[in-house]
């Protein structure tokens, strides 16, 4: 069948039109969902959006006003709440460390071709999926009931979630690792642990470290949030100081600043380190997409 240019053009135009109609339809559905969703959320909220948005700045205004009026006290507050901040960071760091080490082994077990027993891959992956799906707060609240308040429940909760999240990322990295060193080590009689530690880990270590650092940034935020529900650290102090009518908004402001500063500093350091890990020393820092 001989196709003329004319035929091709009509076909193309028809296909384009169909695609455009489809895209338009998708867009209309999306906009309708957004509008309906916003209306529903607005209706089910205690205070409506249209009444509330004028008050958005009231609370920050109160906090800043109170902090400014007693600005000379701020350095003292920084010192007072520094131990809490250190506890929050310790929770995140310990959870990331333990989680990363456990995730390393979980990831090796969850990668086809590296697992010592082929049937173990699927169950380990399911376990990682479940660990990832349970929000930290669920585990933390239950552990607080069992172990009492304090940093340990928060650490365990974040650690479990970290195993799930890093285990998946690590096993994706493992899939790209070359199997040749592993085969070489196997041919000289290395055990499974030796093959993994000497054959796989050196290849993937920079990527592992980079993911673990990113996780550390996320975990600091999680640790502050868990403090807010009773697991110690700076989140707990924040909740106590910002309740109404205590006149402690200046202390709350100090905690806000400490937390903000800690998050920004850790983010900067970690993003710098991650760039060096993934692009080498010469790479000019411009921030990587992760």
């Amino acid at each position, binding site marked *: 069948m001989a196709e003329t240019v004319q035929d091709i053009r009509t076909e193309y135009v028809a296909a384009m039109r169909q695609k455009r109609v489809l895209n338009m339809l998708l867009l209309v559905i999306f906009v309708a969902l957004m509008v309906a969703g916003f209306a529903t*959320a607005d209706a089910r*909220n205690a205070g409506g959006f249209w009444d509330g948005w004028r008050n958005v700045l009231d609370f920050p205004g109160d906090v800043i006003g109170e902090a400014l009026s007693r600005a000379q006290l701020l350095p003292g507050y920084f010192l007072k709440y520094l131990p809490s901040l250190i506890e929050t960071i310790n929770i995140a760091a310990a959870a990331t460390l333990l989680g990363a080490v456990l995730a390393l082994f979980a990831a090796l077990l969850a990668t086809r071709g590296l697992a010592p027993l082929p049937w173990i891959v699927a169950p380990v992956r399911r376990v990682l999926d479940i660990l990832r*799906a349970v929000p930290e707060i669920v585990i933390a609240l239950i552990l607080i009931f069992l172990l*009492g308040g304090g*940093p340990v429940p928060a650490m365990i909760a974040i650690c479990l979630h970290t195993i799930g999240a890093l285990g998946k990322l690590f096993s994706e990295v493992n899939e790209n690792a070359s199997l040749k060193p592993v085969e070489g080590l196997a041919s000289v009689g290395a055990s499974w642990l030796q093959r993994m530690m000497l054959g796989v880990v050196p290849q993937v270590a920079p990527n592992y470290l980079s993911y673990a650092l990113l996780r550390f940034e996320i975990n600091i935020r999680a640790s502050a949030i868990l403090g807010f529900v009773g697991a110690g650290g700076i989140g707990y102090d*924040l909740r106590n100081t910002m309740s109404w009518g205590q006149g402690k908004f200046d202390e709350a402001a100090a905690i806000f600043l400490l937390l*903000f500063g800690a998050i920004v500093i850790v983010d900067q350091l970690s993003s710098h380190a991650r760039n060096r890990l993934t692009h080498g020393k010469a790479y000019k820092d411009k921030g990587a*997409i992760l």
Partner: protein
Amino acid sequence: MTTATLTLQAERLIARKKLVALAAPLLIAAYLIYVFFAFDVPGLRDRVSLDNMNTLLRDTYSYKTHVTQDNRNGEVSIAIEGERKGTYPQGDSPDWVKLGPATSVDLGDGHLITLGETVRYDIPGYGTVTARPGRSGVNAKLPPGAVPDWINASRNRIAITTDAGRLTITRNRTEVFRYFTGWELFFFTLDSPFHDLSLTQLIANGDYGGMWSDFWNNKMWRHADVAWALVETVLMAFLGTFGAAIIALPMGFLAARNFTPLGAARFAARRIFDFLRGVDGLIWTIVLSRAFGPGPLTGSLAIMLTDTGTFGKIFSEALENVDDKQIEGLTSTGAKPLQRYRFGVIPQITPILLSQVLYYLESNTRSATIIGAITGGGIGLLLTQAIITQKDWEEVTYYIVLIVLMVMIMDSLSGWLRRRLISGDAS
């Protein structure tokens, strides 16, 4: 460079690597030891509550029915989990309780309790315990011999815990617990006509509308409220993620070096992103809940603010990595700036942006649960409420299962959409 200097260099390098290989694990171990003591892990042994652990485990897979006698007037009431919502109507009882002047409670395996002015408990393999609770105390009579450790007796109170159940007598109240496996009244509460029908009887009954409404409005499990809470949580994630993406896209152009030559504008946009990300979701949630009160809208806006910062950074970086050649090609055909953006830039960045946004949709479902717990909305609120009461662990289990399912479904949905919208187009 001679061989000798090269060897020296190599040796120095290897020595350094050895040092690092040794020092890193040592440092980590030292840090963990410090944390071990800073978190007071040794003191944890005193704080662990084994009672709580038992309650929790037992409650997740079983429930108990209370048979309570008021010792002053002899009135007997039967309630599942001791809740008003699970109370049997007056004169009605499950088949193991025989109401009468002396109510008898059969705990199974030969354990028989008779209530009344005198309370009797026949314990197989031990003997009969009787008590006459009154003003002078519970007046318990135990079989001769040493009191076993599962009986806790004093003048005003006696508690007997056996495998079959538990009997507590005080001067004013006699209470019997019997444990059953499963979740109580999950489908129908006692006031529903369907509650003691079997599955085949239900199918034969035919009143499916009535069944659905009794199930949906179950007062004990509140299925309708739970479904709404799940919808609210997903809604928070959906509105927050896509709202943030819509705001972040134009701001991303503003922060990208190759689209905004004006340094000041770029700087401002980037600092806004840093600020939104740095002030954590927790703080945004607190600030917004003061203005809007608890609910899904507050959660959506909190997610939206935080993610605007994240997306802005990701989008502007994606825009900076756009291939110029396609834009040059379009320029050479005489395309106007708007057309250049539409056909030269958008097709290049759409897959990256879409895959990032969909990835965050899944992760925000989890955040929405957490934010809900703080600000009071969605399934997070129900979960914290159930945990705070410290007795409805079967509900906690139910919510956790639902949350895990919800996150997993959102995960597969976002993965499916990513494949459909990004790579699926070509096939």
